[in-house]
Each structure stands twice: as structure tokens, then as C-alpha cells.
């Protein structure tokens, strides 16, 4: 018996719909639970005040600052480094055993569990280089951790820029570097920003690697050599050690909201970039 394609069509469409709603549904449920449990404990005082009694009382101001410091500094370090690597791989090398090796290395790095980065950071930065638990050790570890993402996404974005655009640029007497700077990178910005966004998300949400390298001090990190804790670490410690579930969920709300804010901001910048270069 042959089933009418119309029914199959309908069935497939229904199935795909269910899958899409399922994904979004899970996201909504997670966010709803966090907000339901945490929102009553979230207010401006919570955001702007210092924690007291190990976080049982008071706010999370130092963790917010610590999160921003960690994410911002590691992005500032990893982006030029990662973008540079991506440009080198795409524009200055021909496909060879060497580039395959680098790409294999980058992919392997992306697959390593974060706890191993934490362990490496602890052994190398904290102990060997005598940085101690510090913002610096955390930033360097996080930089290595997000580098593969930035390299891969930038590489894809650069590769997607049509060859014809480069040819036109060369024909207008541009050098290779001028072409990369003025044509290739601008056209690749949306893709590069995607990588940066993913990386910020990873830096903001990371716990294991951070506890090992940046430590978990509740004080406000005022220098690169100070220890500090990010919101994710704060949440983990509050929840894991049963210090205060209310404060933990309050922290989670701020964490989710800030990730949302970063995403909105990134989309805004991305649209600006797209509007400017198209």
C-alpha cells in the first residue's frame, strides 16, 4: 500500500514541530525553575552588596565583578590570539600535514574536559609559575580553554568569505594584508562574534577549571594576583556545601540574566556589523 505523500508530509512536519517545541520547552522550564526559586531573593541590594557569613547573608557583588573580569580578560587575550591563528591557517598556509596537525590539535583541545584544563592551570600557572590562586591564573587557563572555539569559528567564518571578494580587492591594488584587514575580516565578523559569544558563555559558566586556578575567595579581586570567585563558582559552593539555597538561586538568576544580556548585546553588535558591511 502506498501512503499518500501529503500525510507523510504532515506527519514529518508535526514531528519536527514537536522536536522544536521540546527544545525550547526544556530551556523555558530550566529558566522558569531558576527564576521561580531565585527571583524573590534577587534585588539591587543583592547585586551591589558584599557577601557575609560565607555567602549566607548579603549579596554577590565581588562574584559579579570577578565574573566580568575573568570573561573580559580571557576574551581580550583569546580573541587576537585565536583570530591570528585562524588567519594564519586560512590565508597564509596551504593545506599540508602541518596545518592538518594544527587543526587536529585545536580540535583535540576543544574536546578536553574542563577539569583537565583546571588541573593543568593549577600545576603550571598556580604552582610552577608561582602565581597562586589568582585572577591571572584563571584568565590564562580560561584563555587556553576558549581558544579552540575562537579559532574554529573564526576559521569557518573566514573560509566562508567568497574568493571573488579577495580577487576584487587585489585587482584594486590591495596587498594581501590590506585585503584581509579591509575585506575578509569585516565580512567574517558575524561568524567571529558567534565564537566570541560562545566563549563568553563558557567563561561565565565554568566552575571546575576556575576553582583550581582562580580559587574561590569572596573578596573583591583588585589586582591580577588576587584570588576571586565567579558567579558560577559561587553558586556551586553555596549549593554544594549547603550554605544557602536561596542565595544560590539568587546568584543563578543574575547569572542567567547576564548571559541573556551578553547575547542581546552581541546580537546588537552583530547586526550593526552586518548592516555596515552589506
Amino acid at each position, binding site marked *: 500500500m502506498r501512503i499518500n505523500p501529503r500525510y507523510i508530509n504532515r506527519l514529518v512536519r508535526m514531528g519536527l514541530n514537536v522536536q522544536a517545541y521540546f527544545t525550547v520547552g526544556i530551556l523555558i522550564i530550566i529558566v522558569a525553575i531558576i527564576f521561580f526559586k531565585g527571583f524573590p531573593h534577587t534585588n539591587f541590594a543583592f547585586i551591589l552588596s558584599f557577601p557575609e557569613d560565607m555567602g549566607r547573608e548579603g549579596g554577590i557583588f565581588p562574584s559579579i565583578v570577578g565574573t566580568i573580569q575573568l570573561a573580559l580578560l580571557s576574551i581580550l587575550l583569546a580573541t587576537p590570539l585565536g583570530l591570528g591563528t585562524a588567519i594564519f591557517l586560512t590565508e597564509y598556509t596551504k593545506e599540508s600535514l602541518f596545518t592538518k596537525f594544527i587543526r587536529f590539535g585545536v580540535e583535540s583541545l576543544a574536546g578536553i574536559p574542563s577539569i583537565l584544563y583546571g588541573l593543568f592551570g593549577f600545576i603550571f600557572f598556580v604552582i610552577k609559575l608561582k602565581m597562586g590562586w589568582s585572577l591571572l591564573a584563571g584568565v590564562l587557563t580560561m584563555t587556553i580553554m576558549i581558544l579552540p572555539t575562537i579559532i574554529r569559528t573564526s576559521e569557518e567564518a573566514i573560509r566562508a568569505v567568497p574568493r*571573488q*571578494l579577495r*580577487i576584487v*580587492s587585489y*585587482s*584594486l591594488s*590591495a596587498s594581501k594584508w590590506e585585503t584581509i584587514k579591509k575585506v575578509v575580516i569585516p565580512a567574517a565578523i558575524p561568524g567571529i562574534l558567534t565564537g566570541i559569544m560562545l566563549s563568553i558563555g563558557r567563561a561565565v559558566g565554568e566552575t571546575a577549571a576556575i576553582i583550581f586556578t582562580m580559587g574561590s575567595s569572596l573578596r573583591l579581586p583588585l589586582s591580577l594576583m588576587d584570588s576571586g570567585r565567579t558567579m558560577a563558582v559561587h553558586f556551586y559552593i553555596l549549593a554544594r556545601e549547603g550554605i544557602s539555597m536561596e542565595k544560590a538561586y539568587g546568584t543563578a538568576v543574575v547569572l542567567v540574566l547576564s548571559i541573556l544580556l551578553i547575547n542581546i548585546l552581541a546580537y546588537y553588535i552583530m547586526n550593526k556589523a552586518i548592516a555596515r558591511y*552589506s
Partner: protein
Amino acid sequence: MDTKIATDRLRLSFGKTEVLKSITIKVHRNTITGFMGPSGSGKSTLISVINRMIDFENNVRIEGDATIDGTSILDGSINPIELRRRVGTVFAVPIPLPRSIFENIAYGPRLKGTSDRTTLHHLVEDSLKKAFLWDEVKDRLGTSALKLSGGQQQRLCLARTLALKPEIILLDEPCSGLDPISTAKIEDALSELKSEYTIILVSNNTKQIARISDFSAFFYLGELIEYDTTEKVFTAPAETKTEDYIQGKFG
């Protein structure tokens, strides 16, 4: 007549395939020279030697010589980037850079270090006028060049090339994707431009070559079959191959 571009027994091969077989031609200053021939005849490849865009292809071997004003352009001492300021190129498919009309045209001059706003403005206006596009875009220089129609984009590409203040303009089938009206506008612009520039027009459209070129060259399978004044080539071709091609017997 004064020679601007010349090749001397120029041979070029991609790997083992010989694409240009000993081409010797002299292109005269301030004329439009039409290069015609069926695809695979080597005319586009010859152009890419003159602007050194051939540098971006792999496995290329070149023998013989090509000169502009008597100086070799294949010599190692020639800087291809500087050469491309003297030799402008318009490609078959118009490819605007993803930026505004103004910035598209200012791209080349900015690379040369021109950043003064007034100078750039004059240059942009002048180039657009020469390309017969100014009247259509003068009120929206800040909008994206990608929003222009195909015919306008091709004239934008011509204007962009003119802004480099080149001596030579190479056009590689510039009208292949354009409607007759847009084609006519490009042809009008080219006829005006030849007093200042040496122009090579590669085209599959023999009628176009007959209309606007002063000299015509017919290429076939990498060889220069015939080269003379357009009048001579089109009214009394010396070779039967040329005649057959012009009459549309193959192509």
C-alpha cells in the same frame, strides 16, 4: 602608432595544459582593442598576465615577455601591487565590495593613502561621471552598493577602477550578464574614456567589438589568429577562421 602594451612570444601553461601558445601582440595607446574568440581561446588568461592577477593561480608557467611602455611586467623587480594601480580591471560578474557606493570607489584611493574627504569626494564624483553612473546614484552615495541593479553594479566597478587613475583598463566580458540598455551605457562610457586610457575589451559579443573597438584580435585555442584594425578584421578578414567566427559559424 604608439605601443602601450606588448607581448613577445608569450607562452603560458597551467600544469601540462598550454593555454597561450606564443602570443606576440602590440596594443596601441589610447585605443580600444577588442579581444574575441570562443571560450578556451586564452583571451582572459592573456589579460590576467597584463594585470598580474595570474599570480593568484596555481601551477602557472610563463615564458616569453610582456611589457608596458617597453618595461617588462613579468620581471621579478616589478611590484604587482603597484602594477595593478596602473592596470585597472573590470570582471565579467560585477562584484561590489560589501560597503557603500562611496566606499567602494574610495577603496583604491584610500589604499594609496588618500584620506582627505574633499579629494575623495571629487575623485568619487569624477569617476562616477566617467562611468555614466553619477546621475543615478548621486543622492545615495552612502547606501550599500549591493542594492544597485546589475547594470549599475558593473558601472560602479568601472568607476571603482577609474578611481585608481590607471593608464590601462582591462574589461573581461563586462557586459556578459547585462541587458542591452546597461550594455549601451557601458559602451558609451568606454568610447569616451579611450582618449585618456588604453582599453582592452574581452568579449564574446563580436557585434560589441565591431561597434566600439578600434583594433580587433581574434584568438583561437591559445593562438592569436588575426589582429588588425577592427574595420579590416570585420570587412576583409585575412583568415577563414576569423571570418567563420565573426559570422557565427562556431563560437
